[in-house]
């Protein structure tokens, strides 16, 4: 089998395992409370990273420098806007109680 197929199939198998684990935690209550939320969040983050590497072929060894800068810029934007929104709105919600 060609290497590119191997990368795609490995990405699919890993994603499937993480998806099943995350849904299993939610459906069958394998973990409780905050631990379950953390495990589901981690599984989602790892799966997103696997998708970026295996399916979108994001790889900074072979590609151009602008790709890295673009991704970092988007990550900074998301961190500021999402983090800032949640911080302000939850703080406001807390003060309204």
């Amino acid at each position, binding site marked *: 089998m*060609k*290497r*590119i*197929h191997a*990368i*795609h*199939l490995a*990405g*699919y198998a890993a*994603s*499937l395992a993480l*998806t099943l684990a*995350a*849904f299993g*935690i*939610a*459906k069958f209550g394998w973990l409780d409370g905050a631990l*379950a*939320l953390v495990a*589901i*969040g981690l*599984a*989602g*983050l790892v*799966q*997103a990273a696997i*998708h*970026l590497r295996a*399916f*979108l*072929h*994001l*790889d900074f*060894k*072979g*590609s*151009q420098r*602008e*790709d890295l800068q*673009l*991704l970092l*810029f*988007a990550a900074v*934007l*998301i961190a500021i*806007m*999402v983090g800032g*929104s*949640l911080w302000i*709105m*939850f703080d406001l*919600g807390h003060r309204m109680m």
Partner: protein
Amino acid sequence: MTDTTTDAQGVRPHAGIPLEHPDAETAHATERAVFGFWIFLMSDLVVFALLLATYAVLLRGNTGAPGPAEVIELAYAFPETLLLLTSTLTLTFASVALREDRARGVYGWTFLSLALGAGFLALEGAEIAGLIGKGHIPQVNGFLSGYWLAIGTHGLHVAIGVVWGLILIAQFWIYGFCPAIRSRLVRFSLYWHMLDVVWIAIFTVIYLPGSLVS
């Protein structure tokens, strides 16, 4: 895999499925278009991130029932997830077939991916019809507004993707495997794979925590 720092024409490729280009001009044009498309994808990602942040904020501004526990059903979300994940795999087969100039592979795998995407949309349609049937419409409370907004925007993207993919198949059929249309499939696959990444964020933030509460 021919992942090297530069391809045969000495062009450093942007992230995406690596294609063989007939000449340096085509290589440059394709890479430029792929980078432009990455900029669009990142802006789209910012939109989805903010929709999920909006959901998280509205989730707490909930004027009583119905909350996530009454509304969210993993019976829809789970098969939807499997359909979208599998369509991502089958579309990589189409990209590899394109790299190797296997026309039947490109048609077959692209069409299968679109069919799986249509299956996702059918399930999501059934889920939304069920919500409407129970009176769980966006106007009811903050949670439902955020929920409809997030899954609706994603579903609209998938629907646009299915139409785009069908147009792409028609263009391959009419114009053949010329460089301009080959590079469109590269961008289409980036779009499709990114939508699956967005779906991971949606089920991680909305569906799974929502069903935990129950």
